């Protein structure tokens, strides 16, 4: 009997141990990212600083994630790649986001906005152009379908000027503007950082206005192309732990940007090619929104989404898109829980 009892106890211990061996890793595994590499769509624009800082400062790595930072010149290319399934997360200029929503595609979600900025985008003009009215009969370079384009259209409207009729808008990439400005082929340029800062340094150039003059900024504090964080719908359904880990790493980087800007600027200059001084200048003008702020902006009461809806209406008014999408339908804050 005693021997039998001992055997039973030994067996029970053995079973318990085996169960434990299998249980411990499985409990641990529930938090482990299902996919270890996240593909992020970025560029040198300030909206991508958190992803870059996260990569450089190891906020993703410590959560077992590798982030592949894919660079795109324009938000439209980035959003196209997201829809095609080549990107998992991205930050986009909201004009592209709204345009994609207007096309009716439902394979992505908007879940946050990481920053609010002013004075990092604007119109740089020749010294003799003192006011917007002086732009009449002049050539203004803008990248069509960009936030700077929206800014230019709005500013002209505020000043009673019409594009084409009063001011010739020249469709140029931001990178091509300094050369066109230098040779005198354009009289002013509407552009954003980092090229905005570079053009301001050029001889004979001065700041005509910045994005604080945008009508929606005056009313709602919303810039002409606020940044929007987006994710592929299929990705969050398939990889909830990876999504969680990425968001934790991302917003930890946002906190770093808030609290240690100098430390962040040291790694950001590799992305932007700005000097430390210029980089610090850009960082100074950005207000970063952390994890806690996201639901308030996107959901309750959702002032950012309201502003986005106004921007969509603005784009329809200026014939940039056919109809305004109901932005709310693309917002998903469940992943922020």
């Amino acid at each position: 009997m005693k021997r039998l009892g001992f055997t039973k106890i030994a067996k029970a211990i053995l079973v318990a141990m085996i169960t434990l061996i299998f249980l411990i890793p499985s409990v641990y595994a529930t938090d482990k990212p299902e996919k270890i590499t996240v593909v992020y769509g970025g560029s040198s624009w300030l909206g991508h600083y958190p992803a870059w800082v996260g990569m450089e400062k190891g906020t993703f790595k410590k959560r077992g994630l590798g982030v592949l930072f894919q660079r795109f010149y324009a938000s439209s290319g980035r959003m196209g790649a997201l829809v095609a399934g080549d990107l998992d997360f991205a930050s986009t200029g909201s004009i592209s986001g709204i345009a994609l929503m207007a096309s009716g595609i439902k394979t992505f979600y908007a879940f946050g906005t990481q920053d609010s900025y002013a004075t990092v985008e604007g119109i740089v003009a020749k010294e003799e152009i003192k006011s917007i009215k002086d732009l009449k009969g002049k050539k203004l370079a803008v990248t069509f379908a960009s936030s700077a384009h929206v800014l230019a259209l709005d500013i002209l409207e505020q000043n009673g000027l019409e594009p084409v009729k009063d001011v010739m808008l020249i469709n140029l990439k931001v990178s091509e503007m300094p050369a066109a400005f230098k040779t005198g082929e354009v009289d002013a340029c509407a552009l954003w950082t980092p090229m905005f800062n570079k053009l301001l340094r050029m001889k004979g150039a001065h700041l005509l206005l910045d994005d604080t003059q945008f009508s929606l900024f005056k009313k709602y504090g919303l810039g002409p192309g606020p940044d929007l964080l987006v994710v592929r719908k299929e990705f969050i359904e398939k990889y909830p732990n990876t999504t969680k880990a990425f968001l934790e790493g991302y917003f930890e980087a946002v906190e770093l940007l808030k609290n240690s800007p100098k430390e962040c600027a040291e790694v950001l200059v590799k992305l932007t090619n700005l000097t430390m001084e210029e980089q610090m200048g850009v960082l100074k003008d950005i207000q970063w929104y952390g994890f806690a702020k996201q639901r308030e902006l996107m959901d309750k009461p959702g002032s950012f989404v309201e502003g986005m809806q106004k921007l969509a209406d603005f784009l329809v008014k200026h014939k940039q898109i056919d109809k305004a999408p109901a932005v709310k339908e693309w917002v998903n804050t469940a992943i922020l829980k």
Partner: protein
Amino acid sequence: MRGKKSQVTRYAYISVASFVLIMVLWEAFCRLGFIEPIFLPSPSQIFSRALKMYDQGTLFLHVIASTRRVMVGFMVSSLVAIPVGLFLGSSRFFKAIFDPVISLLRPLPSMSWIPISLLWLGISETQKYSIVFMGSFAPSLLYIIESTRNIDPILIRAAENLGATKRDVIKEVILPGAMPQIIAGLKVMLGIAWTCIISAELVAAQEGLGFLIMNAKEYFQTDTIFLGMLLISLTVIIIDVTFRRIEGRLLPWTR
């Protein structure tokens, strides 16, 4: 003769029927929701976009702007390529001199000329013409050289024996002999010139079919992209038919 005519009519019916069938299937495929309109808009969606742009008065503005750019670039390219091609095709010595340069220019895509053309010509219309010119010049030149070299050497020797100078040979023998092939080649080159329009209108363009396509891409307006592509094809077809008529008048023996 009558049998041949009825056969032509039959083939025309087949072409029309196949086109209609493709359109119907395409429309049905889209309407049944097999594919999102952002990836493939239906023909009716493209048509309604065309109507909208027609109402706004912008449809033909784009067609005219692109046609002007292509025609100017292509005409200048042809005007340079024809005499140079005839000359190089009839002189092995000069062809040997220019061969390395032509070989280097030939594989360059029109897009690769954008940065240089911007530096040299700025953002003017000339820059856009130059992109079409550079994209079509080297292939046109090679085609003309080959057309010239295909002339029967006996004809050239006969003319020379009769006392014709080098200039007379080019003018009286090579040019008329190579003309049908040159014109056939130019028709192909015109198509190539149209492929340069996207590159030509990539920088500082406010109108044109290339601009229309690239701008629509920024707003994910796939119907406008398809419309732009369709308009390029239709414009090329119309120009091609016009070209054939001119060819028929200039070279009646080729009909």
